[in-house]
């Protein structure tokens, strides 16, 4: 992992019109709090020293999920080349939380940003070997051109932000 990789990730996200923030672990919770629009739901973040702000409901009910403006989830890793975050299908509901809200905020450790798709597949293979064998590569915002013009936010989120935790 090099600074160049994060730079490449940032440029890819910029091309996808996805928000990008790079913050130290100590500031992450506060930064998330400023980004989320309430009501917000989330899956617990596994990064040491990073917790979800109080405004984010974990273990949401299906009513919470349906009403949520924002869903915050961790990403197992990210692929700089394409601006992709890997959201894992875990029992805490990360997949549904990242999908049902209007805005998805993905939080990823800087050490988990890999340069390209090949490196992403290496990480995917490691996860499969460890039993994490259901993963979504999410790149940018949900989109369709089926109604005659490109529209974002169809079944999935129309806004996406990625927060890179620089010291994790």
């Amino acid at each position, binding site marked *: 992992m090099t600074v160049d990789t994060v730079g490449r990730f940032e440029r890819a996200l910029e091309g996808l019109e996805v928000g990008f923030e790079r913050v130290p672990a100590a500031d992450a919770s506060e930064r998330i709090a400023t980004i989320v629009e309430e009501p917000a739901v989330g899956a617990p973040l596994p990064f040491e020293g990073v917790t979800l702000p109080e405004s984010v409901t974990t273990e949401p009910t299906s009513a919470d999920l349906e009403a949520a403006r924002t869903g915050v989830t961790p990403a197992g890793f990210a692929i700089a080349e394409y601006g992709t975050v890997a959201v894992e299908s875990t029992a805490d509901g990360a997949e549904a939380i990242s999908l049902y809200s209007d805005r998805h905020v993905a939080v990823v450790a800087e050490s988990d940003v890999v340069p390209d798709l090949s490196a992403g597949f290496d990480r995917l293979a490691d996860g499969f070997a460890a039993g994490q064998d259901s993963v979504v*590569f999410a790149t940018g915002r949900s989109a369709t051109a089926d*109604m005659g013009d490109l529209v974002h936010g169809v079944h*999935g989120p129309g806004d996406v932000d990625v927060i890179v935790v620089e010291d994790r």
Partner: protein
Amino acid sequence: MAQRTHSQQADHIRHLLETEGDAVHAKASSFHAQRGEAYDAADDLEALRTEARSIKEDAIDRLPDLIDTVRDAVEANGGTVYVADDAADANAYVADVVDTQTEEHGITGDGDTPSVVKSKSMTTEEIDLNDALEAAGIEVTETDLGEWVLQVADDTPSHIVGPAMHLERAEIAELFNERFDPDEPLETAEELTQFARDYLADHIQEADVGITGANFVVADSGTITLVTNEGNARKCAVTPDTHVAIAGVEKLIPRLSDLEPFVDLIAKSATGQSIAQYVTMLSPPTDSPTLEFDRPDEPITAGDDGAANTEPADRDFHLVLLDNGRMDMREDDQLRETLYCIRCGACSNSCVNFQSVGGHGFGGETYSGGIATGWEAGVHGQDSAAEFNDLCTGCSRCVDACPVKIDIPWINTVVRDRINRNEDPAATDFLVDGLTPDMEDGGIDLGKRFFGNIGTVAKAASATAPVSNWLADADPIRGLLERTLGIDRRRDLPAFQRESLVDWFEKRGGKAASSRRAARADDADIDREVVLYPDVYTNYVDTERGKAAVRTLEALGIPVRVPDLPESGRAALSQGMVATADRQASRLYAALAEDLDAGRDVVVVEPSDLAAMHREYEQLLPERSFERLRDNSYEICEYVYGLLENGANPSALSTGDGAEPIAYHSHCQQRTLDLEAPTVAVLERCGYTPDTSSAECCGMAGSFGYKREYYELSVDVGERLAEQVAGAKTVVASGTSCGDQLEGLLERDVPHPIELLEPSSRL
């Protein structure tokens, strides 16, 4: 389905050109352009395509083993695999899953009708799953916006990736406003999308079963991969507690690592995106909690008892692998390649005929575009392929687009051949029998036999020219030609020359005289000798470009021979007459063998004949013969480029003033051979500033544009090209067809580039 007559087909195509052509062209041509950019931007594209193809070859080769492997993997994960023999088998299984699920768990949502939500799946279109489920009392809702529009409109997909591509926004708005009568009429794409999202969200939340397709299935981990942009497939898979994935058996690939090149390629080839929005890799049943929207106050992570769940989610997963003819395709040496298809639609988007009529014209019962001929012949039978197979003109532009390098034109040629052989012998076969020394059994369409034997026709017409030309142009004869051979009377017929190129060459002294002329040229120490191939058109119709080629080569110091050589088989191939083409390829190779042994270079003026030698002959000749001819044959301007690069002096040629602008349309098959660039380079070396067309094909495609049922389509395609080049003072084109089409539309001469270059002092 009974095949349409020529005039029914003409009406059908005219209707599509008027109603759907504009919408399809706008989107398909834009996808095509974006795919080109994405391919150009990827530095390892060719390696990816090669790798993807080899994975598919291997996977199809050991498909029975992979089915066993995936069964073990899915069952180990806690799911079920069902291999369905055919559509009825698959549909009955899915209906049974829905029944069992609703009997055990009750019906989700209001009402007492079981319901399913679906994400886009051409495979379920193939088996008419929706009709079968509805007949079983199950409510079906499509959630891909395009598919849902079609469901509301009771319409069918016109493109394998963009199913509602043929509809304009205004048409969708009108449909929704009429059907749903919203408080405020819907108008913009945003409004329509928001309305659909809200409507479909309710259905997804209340569904008993979610049905998806699968783009790829990883056998050894039981992982299905869904590639989408909207996110509906994720919702269908994750929301209801039962998920059924339906995939053709050919979607199996061995290992997770095999998935990588496909994930990298599929969005690039489909829409020009570097990667799709969502590449979902699920090894179900997954750990994601099911979503019970009818119990809104319970945490989604809770178990059935309301307490926080520590057990895996209670999910049910069924993978239905569909055969429906695929295992037979696997045994068919000509159709097997079709199974490598990843359904990206790049062949449709690259195809000028598809761009003009869309999949409702260029498609069968389910599939559309060039590869559809293979799919329809394999899963629905040859009759379905026969409906549209003629629309593939063999232009071959899809060959560069296909991410797994399928020879789509060859599949179309082979299926056309099989269709020809199944047709009943017509009572009027005698009309063309005398003119058609082919290897075909009776029964093939008369027009096809006529065009497939054009060399013999041309020889006879040349021998009797100009009388044959006057006769052919007479009104009663045009009527007869239209009725019997399907030649549209609006099309100018080629004028045959009384003196063929071969005769002209002999009359001016043959190879001895050519050697003397070449020796008088500047000596660049290039010790080569050329056999100029007198293709049918260059020999009998457009002899001037042949003469220009001879004079140009001589002026550059190269002695030329123009022997009377057999046809290449191109004409026969275009009509699906493979046996005839096979015999012609053998004869031509035999006739050239001595020249090849003597180290002479074979130079070809007509790109389509060179393309036969460089592409189709691989199927027709022994490998060594094919490679020997391919490696020693050249397109005329490519050859001139080589001579100039090796020191030949261009001052012997006609040169422009250094910046004379000209419009140049390369030939479609020439582009696929990567031979547009040499012509451009030669023109630039000789003082011209060529502006190349971006149109992939002129639409004439040999005989295609002459046929009554395709004349209007051919002109529609040709006009796009004509508009691009009309402003230039000089327009040149490499192919006979391209020249004919442009001359007809622009009403002026469109010569071959070699005619611009030939020395001004004509000998």
